[in-house]
């Protein structure tokens, strides 16, 4: 590979925008698109790249979005820019690292009032790991609470980017954004790569298009690719003929070719996403000795939960919907499972709770599926008496305690960034969650970064919310997988009128078991409507009941009069009552509403 950029690539700049959540990446992208006249005023709207319905509704970016722009710079030359807007939420860090792999530079946006937060740092480190040129930009300087001087100092202190080179911008008003664009051109290097070598391109993302099949988003490293070219995927040596290439605008925009250094898309009649895996290298079919480009670490799901259709006839639909969803969401994994309480469903692996919520929401909206989700769980390693080693990500599959020698649970290395005044609260919280303190440093006098090894199971559910509440919203969290450690784990079963409900079982640390059981029983009592019979709600470890609540029977639910004219009225009422019943799952003698299965997410610990 050439060390210096080929002069033919000198007009290309590939960069992404990275930041902590909500620091203004997508809004900055808006201004850049305007400045470069990439979109017509009619196409323009706030955070225009957030085009998924859920992104718009939640006001956050979930998927990276790449878009090509052209810009006539102050030096009089026209540059081809490829911008990738990335998500800021910790669940989607893998999206950031993939986007970085297609770029030479990154704009690190930092909110002028919030300063450096957890994903500011983790995304900066990712960019540096990949040898990208990082440009700092302090955003939202239009806000009265902004303190750009302090933040510039923090940035220099933490990243080594000189404070004076960090631009002050407002993505809202557009102030400073043109200077930023000039700095991008001046400082971010043009791509390296050999335009004359055989084709090598990195697939950094892919999506599924109803008409085209798999659309691979690529960064061409060497050579070029045109429709009609024969290509192969280096990992599996599958060969295809290219039918279309182009650049990424709001829609796909076909071009006659994609050349070295460019970012764009390739369509080659690939039917399954598995055949054009993200991280794979696309090569010229004729060249046998190509070296694969460095790919990506496999994303590992952190949280597992069973998804079941509320109505069992919907099983096939759920299966099909999941199949479609993974086409655009490679991080989601699923396999069939069955539950005594819920019937046939799928065990799904998610990156985190937000990812889980988004997947469920998309299944609901895009596929009109009514779902029940079982208690989220992490993946345990279980050593049995007979020497066998099991992985268990479904509490109901945990073997009986008698057969188990030891259980190991996954840990993460977590870092919390916080104003120093909340440090005490945060350390207390981490301690409660069985954290092992590993370090404390100050980014500056009033800002600390504290490290803990924490059991993943202790943080997946509600840790983030608790963290926000003990720090009045100021602390932020970043974590990465940190191996397995032994833990004194027990399985807690929930029984409704003495029938265990496997979907509500959980594996928790013995010290927390009583509290968990008590709290969950109390919540279930609130969420399960009164039934025709009294319902005993119990939590048990093995055969030992550790908590109990009693739900009294409903006493009145009757229409007093049902004569000629009342019949039509009553039938309409019955339609509603039936609908209500359908939204319940019958478990043994008890009807359990969908929401009850969410109770676990709210358990105080």
């Amino acid at each position, binding site marked *: 590979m050439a060390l210096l950029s080929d002069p033919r690539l000198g007009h290309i700049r590939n960069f992404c925008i990275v930041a902590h959540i909500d620091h203004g990446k997508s809004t900055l992208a808006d201004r850049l698109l305007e400045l470069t006249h990439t979109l017509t005023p009619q196409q323009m709207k706030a955070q225009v790249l957030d085009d998924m319905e859920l992104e718009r509704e939640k006001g956050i970016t979930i998927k990276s979005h790449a878009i090509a722009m052209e810009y006539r710079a102050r030096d009089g030359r026209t540059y081809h820019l490829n911008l990738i807007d990335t998500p800021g939420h910790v669940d989607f860090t893998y999206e950031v690292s993939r986007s970085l792999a297609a770029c030479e530079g990154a704009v690190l946006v930092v909110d002028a009032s919030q300063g450096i937060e957890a994903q500011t740092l983790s995304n900066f480190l990712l960019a540096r790991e990949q040898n990208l040129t990082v440009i700092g930009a302090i955003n939202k300087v239009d806000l009265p609470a902004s303190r750009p001087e302090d933040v510039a100092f923090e940035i220099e202190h933490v990243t080594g980017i000189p404070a004076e080179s960090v631009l002050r911008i407002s993505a809202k008003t557009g102030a400073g954004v043109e200077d930023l664009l000039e700095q991008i051109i001046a400082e971010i290097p043009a791509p390296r790569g050999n335009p004359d070598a055989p084709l090598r391109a990195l697939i950094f993302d892919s999506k599924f298009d109803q008409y085209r099949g798999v659309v691979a988003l690529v960064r061409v490293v060497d050579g070029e690719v045109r429709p009609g070219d024969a290509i192969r995927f280096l990992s599996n040596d599958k060969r295809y003929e290219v039918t279309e290439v182009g650049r990424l605008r709001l829609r796909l925009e076909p071009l006659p070719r994609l050349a070295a250094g460019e970012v764009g898309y390739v369509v080659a009649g690939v039917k399954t996403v598995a055949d054009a895996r993200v991280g794979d290298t696309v090569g010229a079919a004729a060249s046998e000795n190509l070296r694969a480009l460095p790919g990506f670490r496999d994303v590992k799901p952190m949280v597992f939960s069973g998804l079941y259709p509320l109505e069992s006839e919907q099983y096939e639909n759920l299966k099909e919907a999941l199949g479609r969803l993974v086409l655009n969401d490679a991080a989601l994994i699923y396999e069939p499972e069955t539950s005594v309480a819920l019937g046939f469903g799928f065990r799904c692996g998610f990156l985190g709770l937000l990812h889980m919520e988004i997947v469920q929401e998309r299944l609901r909206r895009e596929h009109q599926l009514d779902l029940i989700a079982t208690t989220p769980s992490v993946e345990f390693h279980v050593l049995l008496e007979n020497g066998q080693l099991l992985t268990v990500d479904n509490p109901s599959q945990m073997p009986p305690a008698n057969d188990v020698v030891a259980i190991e649970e996954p840990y993460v290395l977590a870092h919390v960034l916080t104003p120093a005044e909340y440090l005490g609260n945060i350390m207390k919280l981490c301690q409660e969650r069985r954290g092992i303190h590993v370090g404390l440093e100050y980014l500056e006098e009033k800002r600390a970064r504290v490290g803990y090894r924490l059991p993943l199971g202790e943080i997946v559910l509600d840790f983030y919310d608790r963290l926000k509440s003990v720090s009045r919203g100021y602390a932020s969290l970043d974590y990465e997988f940190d191996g397995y450690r032994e833990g004194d784990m027990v399985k807690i079963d929930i029984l409704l009128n003495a029938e265990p409900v496997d979907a509500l079982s959980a594996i928790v640390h013995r010290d927390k078991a009583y509290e968990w059981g008590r709290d969950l029983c109390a919540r279930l009592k609130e969420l399960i409507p009164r039934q*025709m019979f009294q319902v005993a709600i119990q939590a048990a470890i093995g055969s030992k009941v550790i908590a109990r609540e009693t739900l009294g029977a409903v*006493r*009145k639910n*009757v229409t007093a009069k*049902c004569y000629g004219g009342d019949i039509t009225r009553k039938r309409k009422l019955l339609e509603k009552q039936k609908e209500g019943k359908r939204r319940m799952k019958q478990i043994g003698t008890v009807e359990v509403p969908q929401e009850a299965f969410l109770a676990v997410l709210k358990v105080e610990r």
Partner: protein
Amino acid sequence: MHVPFCATRCTYCDFSSGALSAAAVERYLGALEREIALRAPRCADASHRSVFFGGGTPSALSSRHFRRAWKALRDGFRIAPDAEITLEANPESVRPVLLEVWAEAGVNRLSMGAQSFVPEELARLGRIHDAARPGEAFALARAHGFRRLSLDLMFGFPGHTAERWRRSIDEALALEPEHLSAYCFIAEPGTPLGDAAISGAAPLPAPEEQADLYALLEARLAAAGYGCYETSNFCRPGAEARHNLVYWLRRPYVGLGPSAHGLLDGVRYGNHYAPARWAEQLERGQGPESEVEPEREASAAEEALMLGLRLGGGMRPDDYSPAFWSTIRRRYGGAFTHARATGRLEMDADGVRIPAPLRFVADDVIAWVAARGVAAS
């Protein structure tokens, strides 16, 4: 036949009813004759086994007006010689002249609205008779040879207590009615007492207390030899209202008058609620219906379930045609079995029914079963 007139309006009532005036009654009867002319040809071959004058207050019609209504009815429809002919009467309007006219017409069953025997309650409910009047009316009716008398009571309204309820029940039983209906108060929006209950100005007894009042009623009536043959209806053996069972077993019937409903030739219809609107349509030569719904197999089966499970004897195969019963079995057979297994239904050779202790949660059971019905294959 719905007769939409009352002397005054009770505080809980949302029935189609207006003030009594000669002009209003004349208009009503004219329109009624038109409706009869409209509907009678459609059941020319039928012999009607029951007639029900409901209201409003049918007993508010003068003898002349009642005769005119009766003549129109008899001229239009064939009424079986042994038909059950019921008339709803308010105690204060039961007078010898009227009793004679009714008896002469063939009315053989009177249903009297007493609601309560506690003076304060009668005032609160807006009833214009006193606590002694139902007894007097009963005595008069008996003296005129009426052998089938029914009494309406109400419970669970704001301020109702077990102690007073017991008093009303006992007074009612002392009159030895053959049949008794007891309704749990429904807070109808737009009625003075209903609105007061909804806003909380006149708090309702808790559902548990209402359930206790119902249990009290069931126990007292059972001890006196009255069985519960429908959620809110009780009678001595064999004294069921034949007309009510027409509704509940989904037999065809003709509804006449404002707000009346009918089920005829596989169509369920409902007339306009407002007497003036109903009359206007007929005067213009148009149909008086505000809703018309052809029944489908699914709606018919679901209705049969919803009505049949309210019966004390439940749904019995003998009460339906073999074809319809097999439809019901196909849709709900699985649900019945499941419901029995979970204690929601009793099932034996006689049929399926809601166990007595669950009568006051019948809606829950019905919805539970209905939700598990399978669509026809």
